[in-house]
């Protein structure tokens, strides 16, 4: 992997030592290229699964934020424009995507809570148990939400 970062004057001096210390120019050993490694769960454990899920749901939710704003912008076009969207939004496929959204929110929200606690120095020795406990709770909420969305009950 080549060093494409800016010259030393723009970085922490400690960081420069790491870059300068390297002898030879052989390739850096990587499991997988670039950010793909963030999502490679082979031979990895619960903590990495939580990290990968948090990252992918986070990026997905950022995308959803802008998609949501774009969809809501159809309201500016008046009732016909919005009704056109509602027709699409009430199809089973779209309701399924809604459920995917809820899944993403639950995973990111509950795991984020776990990370806030762990990152503040609390419960670091229970990181696996806390992840699975929160995901179990999230699964219950997801099932309830699915029943509501597809069942049409309030």
């Amino acid at each position: 992997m080549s060093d494409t970062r800016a010259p030393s004057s723009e970085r922490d001096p400690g960081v420069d030592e790491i870059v300068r210390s390297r002898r030879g120019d052989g390739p850096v050993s990587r499991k997988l290229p670039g950010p793909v490694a963030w999502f490679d769960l082979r031979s990895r454990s619960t903590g990495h699964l939580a990290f990968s899920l948090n990252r992918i749901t986070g990026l997905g939710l950022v995308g959803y934020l802008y998609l949501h704003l774009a969809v809501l912008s159809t309201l500016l076009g008046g009732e016909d424009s919005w009704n056109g969207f509602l027709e699409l939004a009430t199809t089973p496929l779209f309701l399924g995507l809604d459920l995917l959204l809820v899944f993403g929110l639950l995973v990111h929200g509950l795991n984020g809570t776990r990370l806030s606690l762990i990152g503040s120095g609390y419960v670091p020795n229970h990181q696996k148990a806390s992840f699975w406990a929160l995901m179990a709770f999230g699964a219950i909420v997801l099932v309830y939400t699915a029943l509501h969305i597809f069942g049409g009950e309030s």
Partner: protein
Amino acid sequence: MTTDGAAITATASMRTVRVHRFKRGDEAPRTEDHDVPVDERTTVLEALRYIQLHDDPTLGLRHSCFHASCGTCGVRVNGRERLACVTKLSEVSGTIAVDPIANLPVLHDLVVDMAPFLARFPHPHPIVRGSELVPGSVAPEGIDELDRYEDCIECGLCLSACPVAATDDTYLGPAALAYAQRLLEEPRGADRDAILDWADQDAGAWRCHAAFECTEACPSGVRPAQRIMALRKQLRRRRDDRSRDVATAAPPTGGPG
């Protein structure tokens, strides 16, 4: 099984070991398969030494103590960070893929450049540092006192397992940050503020995303992830203390001039 194959047991069978090969000047790394006689006790290091002695003497690898205390034989076995000297092949199924530890430049086959790993540590960084934490231990007869050395054997497995280090070669990493926390736990005259300043940089303690793979990979019980979280707690306390000091500081007296 001994490395010269003289005492292959009756239960020995052949296993395929797929080894990462790279020499300076090669365009790209490649892998090579070698069939190695193994029994239930054969370790990855013994298999690699067999390949060196019987198949290919140019195979490059590092090892020293043969008992997980020097940290030089770190490799990835089927993608998982392990010390080759204590990893039994019987624990690994299928073809055994042996690769160098990740996120460090490869010098030769399974040998990586450890200089960027060691450069990450705060300075000074004594490589052997006694620990006062010997709770409940009893010195044998004739021994006046026990002195336990730091757990970290600087094998680099934690850096290899870290998903942040996979994309950021400047991240200080689990070993260095855990070492800083150990300095705070037992300072012995070290400058506490300088250690916290060092950890508080962009590529420091706040970059960790709590994947805990470093703790999974560590063969020595250092628990780097937990130590990084404890380091964050220290940074937060210092920040709160400083805010409190600023808030309670007496206002300046006297006018200008």
